[in-house]
């Protein structure tokens, strides 16, 4: 063949034919793959997908969440001491897997980023045949993976995600969240800090400049102003800042007597440590002791902040020091397996896996349609958070919220905080359509 004779027309023709020929096999495979619902399990086992950050700033929380998931899989399969399976009221799980099928799992590094989270979840769905994906440490990844799973027709059980959007404006019918949110933190914390520090305070907010930071600040400002506080200043800082001195310097002369740090993760540890080193807590302002509040505490990052946490008030979803039997059973089996108490990240992961497994068992199917029906308005108890409702209107769990206080005299590095007060679910409940958004239909086809 003379290559000079390959003109545009001929080139296009040949490539079109070659392309069509090569694409042919996929048409057959996709047709033959028609199934009742996406990744319907056929053998004697069923696969869970755990998408958690194992690298990046949230790697610690991610690793601990994965430990929680692995423990949950053991307990669902009837290995180990059963943990919270024994205290889970409303459960029909028998400890022999789900519907007689053994649970296996695959995991991947989501890097706490939306793109990486979707990539790793896609792998688990498309290659490994995961029936359900769960896990997250940031709201960005939770929202991204939730919408992916919804498009793909499988269930997503969110991990640690605290933004209002996850079950607010970005909610999906296929996605469920057990963790609490920024609004609940504000509602729970405001009465407690007003009670502790007086109702005539002026608050200075330093906030991480992204969705979560804003919604956290908004909810605290709104809840405290209703109880008589004033807001002196609201300052935004870029995410991932390591030096907060330029934002902390003006605080001293601002006329404020409370500093609210709306930060999470390493940012929280850095900002809080530096605020304490600045001597803010030793100051007097307006004739009162200067106080610092951290609305959302990460227990693992509190460890990084060390002594700076002493006496600081904040909120948490759950804590290993709670004394109900569910918590004790969980802490016992987690401790036996890993030699340390679980973080709230591990707890929410463990609980979500159990809740999903139980919903399948109750529905008698892995079909998302059946599972969603069971989980909507499902009421349960004994999973460490007291009586809980999985609200059908937005797929958010409503349960008690903890107000925690930094421990003045920690015995070891896990003994960082104490439970200061347990706030009832009613106090943090809101309307399902508070932030708009719509759940849409259940999707069950790939």
């Amino acid at each position, binding site marked *: 063949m003379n*290559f*000079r004779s*390959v*003109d*545009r027309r001929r*080139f296009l023709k040949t*490539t079109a034919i*070659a*392309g069509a020929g*090569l*694409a042919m*096999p*996929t048409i057959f*495979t*996709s047709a033959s793959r028609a199934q009742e619902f996406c990744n319907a399990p056929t053998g004697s086992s069923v696969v869970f997908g755990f998408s958690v950050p*194992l*690298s990046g700033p949230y*790697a610690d929380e991610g*690793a601990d969440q*994965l430990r929680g998931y*692995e423990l949950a899989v053991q307990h669902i399969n009837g290995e180990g001491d059963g943990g919270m399976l024994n205290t889970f009221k409303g459960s029909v799980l028998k400890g022999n897997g789900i519907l007689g099928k053994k649970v296996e799992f*695959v*995991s*991947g*590094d989501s890097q706490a*980023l*939306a*793109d*990486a989270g*979707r*990539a*790793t979840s*896609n*792998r688990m769905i*498309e*290659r490994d045949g995961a029936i359900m994906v769960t896990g997250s440490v*940031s*709201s*960005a990844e939770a*929202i*991204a993976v939730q*919408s*992916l799973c919804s*498009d*793909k027709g499988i269930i997503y059980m969110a991990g640690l995600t605290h*933004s209002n*959007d996850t079950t607010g404006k*970005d909610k999906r019918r296929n996605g469920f969240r057990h963790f609490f949110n920024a609004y609940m933190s504000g509602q729970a914390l405001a009465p407690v800090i007003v009670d502790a520090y007086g109702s005539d305070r002026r608050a200075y907010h330093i906030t991480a*400049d*992204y*969705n*979560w930071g804003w919604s956290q600040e908004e909810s605290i400002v709104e809840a405290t102003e209703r109880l008589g506080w004033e807001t002196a200043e609201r300052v*935004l800082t*870029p*995410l991932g800042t390591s030096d907060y001195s330029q934002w902390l310097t003006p605080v001293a002369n601002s006329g404020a007597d409370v500093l609210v740090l709306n930060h999470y993760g390493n940012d929280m540890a850095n900002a809080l440590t530096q605020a304490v080193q600045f001597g803010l807590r030793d100051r007097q302002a307006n004739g009162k002791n200067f106080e610092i509040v951290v609305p959302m505490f990460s227990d693992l990052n509190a460890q990084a902040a060390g002594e700076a946490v002493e006496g600081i008030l904040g909120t948490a979803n759950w804590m290993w020091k709670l004394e109900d039997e569910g918590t004790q059973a969980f802490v016992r089996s987690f401790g036996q397996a890993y030699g340390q108490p679980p973080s709230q990240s591990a707890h929410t992961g463990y609980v979500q896996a159990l809740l999903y497994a139980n919903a399948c068992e109750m529905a008698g199917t892995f079909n998302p349609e059946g599972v969603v029906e069971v989980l909507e308005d499902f009421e349960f108890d004994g999973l460490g958070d007291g009586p809980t409702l999985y609200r059908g209107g937005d797929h958010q769990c409503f349960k008690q919220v903890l107000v925690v206080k930094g421990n003045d005299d920690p015995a070891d590095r896990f003994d960082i905080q104490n439970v200061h007060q347990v706030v009832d679910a009613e106090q943090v409940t809101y309307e399902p359509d508070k932030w708009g958004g*719509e759940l*849409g239909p259940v999707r069950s086809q*790939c």
Partner: protein
Amino acid sequence: MTLFKSRKDLLYLAIFALVIFAMPLWLKPFGAGYPDLMQRFAIFGVFAIGFNILFGMTGYLSFGHAAFLGAGSYAAVWSFKLLSLNPVPALLFATLVGGVFAALVGVVSLRRSGIYFSILTLAFAQMSYSLAYSVLMPITHGDSGLQLASSDPRVLDRLFGADGTLPNLFGFSMHGMYGFYFCALILIGCFYFSMRLDRSPFGMALRALKSNQTRMSYTGFNTKPYARTAFIISGMYAGLAGGMLAVTDPLAGAERMQWTASGEVVLMTILGGAGTLLGPLIGAVIIKYFENIFSAFHPGRLYETFSFLPEGVQNFFVTIISPFVGEGWHLTLGIMFMLIVIFLPGGIMEGGKRIASALRNRRASGRHLQSRQFEPAE
């Protein structure tokens, strides 16, 4: 006009196309033969090939290319939201936005070269990232990402009565295998374009620019337009790649613009071989493979893999290997990158060439020996 400069190029492209289209077959044994990852291979291949036009051919090291990728993604998602779920207008729009954005950034950045150029582009990218993360909330939706909603206007779709909730090419879903073949076609087109560029007088001018800009300007060339065109083309490639990301997975997040993403494409190009046609694609495939496959191993999986060994040996192997997989995938990638940069400065392509030439030498010397042995003496 003929489409190919030489028969070798035609053959090269034909083999390239065949290998790309056959990906589902030969990637399966490596555990990478699923649509999402293959789409990523193709998309980041386009990104890296485009980056190579600027870095490999022209010699400008941009440290902010992810900004164009991110801008392309946002453009494509907005096209889905406002116009139509068809990927064609989305990709055109994404490419255009990438090009225009690159032209704007180029006006300032290309005034300098070398390290100053790199730092300027890095600054622009970080600026775009911060803007997308918080300031431009209404356009980018910040950290929770820009997503499709059923209430989007989609003017063209409403006009023609097309329905669907996800990007589709006249009914063919861009998820899954169709999405991969769509991306593969674009990749082959982009590869062909960069090959033509490489063989053209313009490509020669770019290489001249790389080897010595001052000397080139002394010979009477105005170097600025060449650099600017290369930068814009490269930005358009990045915008297209960003658009493809949105087509296969309709979500755009600010993190796509972060400097780590810009660094990743530099790594891809260097790992595969800067200045070669195929190298950047190989680099992209390797990095995405590590990111997606190596990160998925956990100790339990390793114990299974080595279950044929006696327990003590099994534990030993798992202990040795586990730091390098799962959360340690960065470590493996880092070590590999170091080894390649130290021993094969030209990237994997140089390794390939060395092996090929070693084989050729051996065969040549072998033939030489043979001919000597069997040649009858006078």
